[in-house]
């Protein structure tokens, strides 16, 4: 077997085990050191993935694709995971045992990459399950805090249902088509009601990981209750994997009439529901959670026009990158402010913490899609491909939603910038989170302006089979 094809993934497993072993021997106050093997593993994975950049082949008996999708999934997920983990040592400083957090996060990242890379339905199920079981633990990590436990519980209950549906869907499709192999399924006649039902169930199972309707309800609770590094991770990383997995799936069935309208409908529902629910939130983390739901809706726009518009894949990839970076920036700011969530806590932040306020404003404006931030290039691509693919009404719905979303982002921005600050200066978490927020905000601007080469690379990306 060509083991080296899975080099990046194996590096993640090795890093996870190393972190676990280290956590066993370290005293409590040194548990933050587990970050080192984790980051080293992520660096190795990134380099290894980069070395395989040009590959375009199926491997491991056709269950795993080495192609543009996998390359970008590895790249984005590895970087996002590294950023989330950087927040962890200071955040969990007082936690009695958090060495395993690094292990758990790496396994979860592995699951997300595996979702994007899977080219076999059973492989896909394994990946979703790996990403899910680790995710429940991450969400409920603060086991003494009711909100965190509630988040984990809700994530678990919805996840259990969604994963069951996914498995049933896979079985139906397998049973009707006689194979679980993507290469064999490609272009297969999927017209029997049972197979179509199966397909819809698979889509709803992946919608759970994506945070889209109908499996979206966990997102605001996790954003609010999970430890901030985990919340940042769970709202970003599984979404990248799920969106790309869904793209692969839609790409398999160019002839199935039902699939694209279904995705488009889910897209509109998701973005509208997320935005409406976010409008009057008084809790900034919950607000970001609902905004993440609406962003899943935007991501589905590109999935709906997979293969209908030639630029659908690069648009999806760059939108996901933009979303991930902006969301991580927002969570880094929140982590730096020690997880403060009440809207009132943000009044006058521009004067007490100018850098954090600026970073959060840039992150929000990028999520809205204000140029020249990277979020603008991401949304531009989405609008471009949906109009190109004949779904102009979807683009119009996204426009209306974008205007609505500006309203609730402005509800955070306005008091930060216009209101008078409270007397006490807010406590902060330390240098790492502050530096990360500022660097991410700079990247939001810089990568927006320098989108050209990245987009060119994404254009070259192919999707197998």
């Amino acid at each position, binding site marked *: 077997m060509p083991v080296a094809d899975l080099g990046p993934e194996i590096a993640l497993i090795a890093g996870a085990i190393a972190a676990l072993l280290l956590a066993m021997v370290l005293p409590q106050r040194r548990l933050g050191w587990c970050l080192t093997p984790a980051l080293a593993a992520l660096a190795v994975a990134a380099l290894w993935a980069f070395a395989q950049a040009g590959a375009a082949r199926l491997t491991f008996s056709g269950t795993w694709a080495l192609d543009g999708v996998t390359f970008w999934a590895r790249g984005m997920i590895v970087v996002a995971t590294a950023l989330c983990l950087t927040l962890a040592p200071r955040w969990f400083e007082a936690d009695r045992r958090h060495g395993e957090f690094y292990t758990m996060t790496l396994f979860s990242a592995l699951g997300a990459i595996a979702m994007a890379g899977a080219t076999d339905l059973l492989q896909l199920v394994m990946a979703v399950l790996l990403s899910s079981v680790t995710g429940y633990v991450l969400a409920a990590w603060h086991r003494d805090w009711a909100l965190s436990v509630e988040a984990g519980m809700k994530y678990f209950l919805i996840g259990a249902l969604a994963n069951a549906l996914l498995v049933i869907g896979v079985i139906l499709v397998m049973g009707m088509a006689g194979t679980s192999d993507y290469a064999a399924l490609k272009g297969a006649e999927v017209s029997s009601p049972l197979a179509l039902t199966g397909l819809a169930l698979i889509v709803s199972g992946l919608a759970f990981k994506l945070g889209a309707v109908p499996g979206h309800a966990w997102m605001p609770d996790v954003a609010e209750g999970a430890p901030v590094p985990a919340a940042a991770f769970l709202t970003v990383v599984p979404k990248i994997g799920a969106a790309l997995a869904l793209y692969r799936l839609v790409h398999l069935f160019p002839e199935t009439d039902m699939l694209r309208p279904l995705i488009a409908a889910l897209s509109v529902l998701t973005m509208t529901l997320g935005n409406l629910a976010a409008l009057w939130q008084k809790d900034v983390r919950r607000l970001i959670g609902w905004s993440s739901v609406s962003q899943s809706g935007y991501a589905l726009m590109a999935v709906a026009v997979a293969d209908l518009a030639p630029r659908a894949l690069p648009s999806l990839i760059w939108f996901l990158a933009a979303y991930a970076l902006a969301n991580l920036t927002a969570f880094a700011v929140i982590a730096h402010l020690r997880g403060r969530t009440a809207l009132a806590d943000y009044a006058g932040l521009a004067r007490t913490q100018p850098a954090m306020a600026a970073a959060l404003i840039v992150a929000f*404006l990028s999520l809205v899609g204000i140029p020249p931030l990277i979020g603008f*290039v991401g949304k531009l691509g989405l609008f*471009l491909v949906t109009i190109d693919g004949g779904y102009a009404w979807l683009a119009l719905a996204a*426009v209306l939603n*974008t205007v609505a979303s*500006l309203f609730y982002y402005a509800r955070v921005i306005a008091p930060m*910038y*216009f209101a008078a600050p409270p007397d006490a200066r807010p406590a902060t978490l330390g240098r790492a989170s502050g530096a990360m927020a500022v660097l991410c905000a700079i990247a939001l601007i810089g990568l927006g302006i320098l989108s050209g080469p990245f987009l060119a690379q994404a254009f070259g990306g192919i999707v197998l089979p």
Partner: protein
Amino acid sequence: MLTFAILLPFAAATLLAFAPLSGGLSRAIAVATAALALLALVVVWAGFTPGAGFQAEMEIPWIPALGVAWRVGVDGISLPLALMSGLLFIAAIAWPMEREVNARQYYAWFLFLEGASLGLFLTLDLLLFYVFFDLSLVGMYFLIGRWGHGDAQRAALKFFLYTLAGSLLILLAIIALVLMTDPLTFDMRELIALQPVAGMDLRAGLILLGLVIGFAIKTPLFPVHTWLPPAHVDAPGPASAILAGVLLKMGTYGLVRIAMQMMRETFATYALAIAIVALISILWGSIVAFAQENLKRRIAYTSVNHMGYAVLGIAVAGSAVTGHEAARDLALTGAMVEMVAHGLITGALFLIAGAFWARTQDYELGHYGGLAGNAPRMMAAMGLASFASLGLPGLAGFVAEVQIFIGAFAIWPWLAALALLGLIVTAALFLGMLQRIFFGDRPPVLDGFADLSRTEIGILAALLALVVLIGVWPAWLLDMIGAGAALTFGGG
């Protein structure tokens, strides 16, 4: 040179945002930057040949995969607007701040806004056009929200939401327009030459509809003008001057550049509808302005009226692909002069309104009276600006409106006759405003009302001198515009 004029204000804004400078020094840097940007534009103007298409061009690839590049250049349409904006920004920045808080950031945002505004007029790339369009919203949002008064946050948010909705519609229309080209290009020159939607029916109509709604929100035209009055009333005076003088022009400029030039056939088909919307705006703006008891609100509504004239001129100019060349040419020239004149005149009026606020924190017309004795210089400046705004011969507004009306009479005589009513109402509302502020009995609280300071009078004198100059000797401006060229081959 054009790139320099765009990027210099951005660079200076970044400097002001991060360097811990004093308020006075920030102000000096801001004024110097604005002056340098205008100087760069004047240099371009010196080498400008009217009627010879796009000039001073430059192109650097940005996102080649989508056909997007940093493209700048000017023609007779964009150069006068850019020059006017450059001048008005100096005036607004040099005008004394109403509330001296956070001077450094105030000037930083103004420079940011200047960069975005100049960029919008100078770019030749549709995507960059959109980028600058959006950036101007961001800059104005923070200026109104942070340094405005009254219910400023609400007004700022309303402004942001309305105009973002408009700008996103424009983005969709731009994308739909660009998708007709193969390979993709956002180059304005190519799009004007290609006329990508010529001969298409419904889709071209929808694209035009998106553009017109988007630009109508920005211009603003009836019935999507409702964000304008609160934004103006609660904004600081200099920001109002920029909002009315520069930002509103982005709507009409977009109508000319994108809707009229890139979709000539489609625009001609629907020109009458656009003209009727313009007519309603003209009448509605003037009548509603007449009923306003708030000084700034009154001036704000006259903007709806005046921009209606400009849009009427544009609709006349684009009403046919061939034929009626002389009338259409005249109307387009008139619309362009109207934009420049409105920028200067209304800019001056809003600065004066800001001076009122700085002295009394009050815009109610009923609370004023008899100020002629206290503030003769203020009366002179406001009188001159008001007369120019109502279209007195010998001043800039007249030059513009007479050309628009001559053009309009040739194409749609009944429509032009109705629009004339707007002129009468406007005259009445300005004269009434002057009368109530400066004549009659002076309320005792206004006894200490100070006349314009030397800085203020200097700035207003520069703006109003140009208004008079355009009024008595408009040839240089008309030459620069050279509208005929813009009608036939896009460049001017």
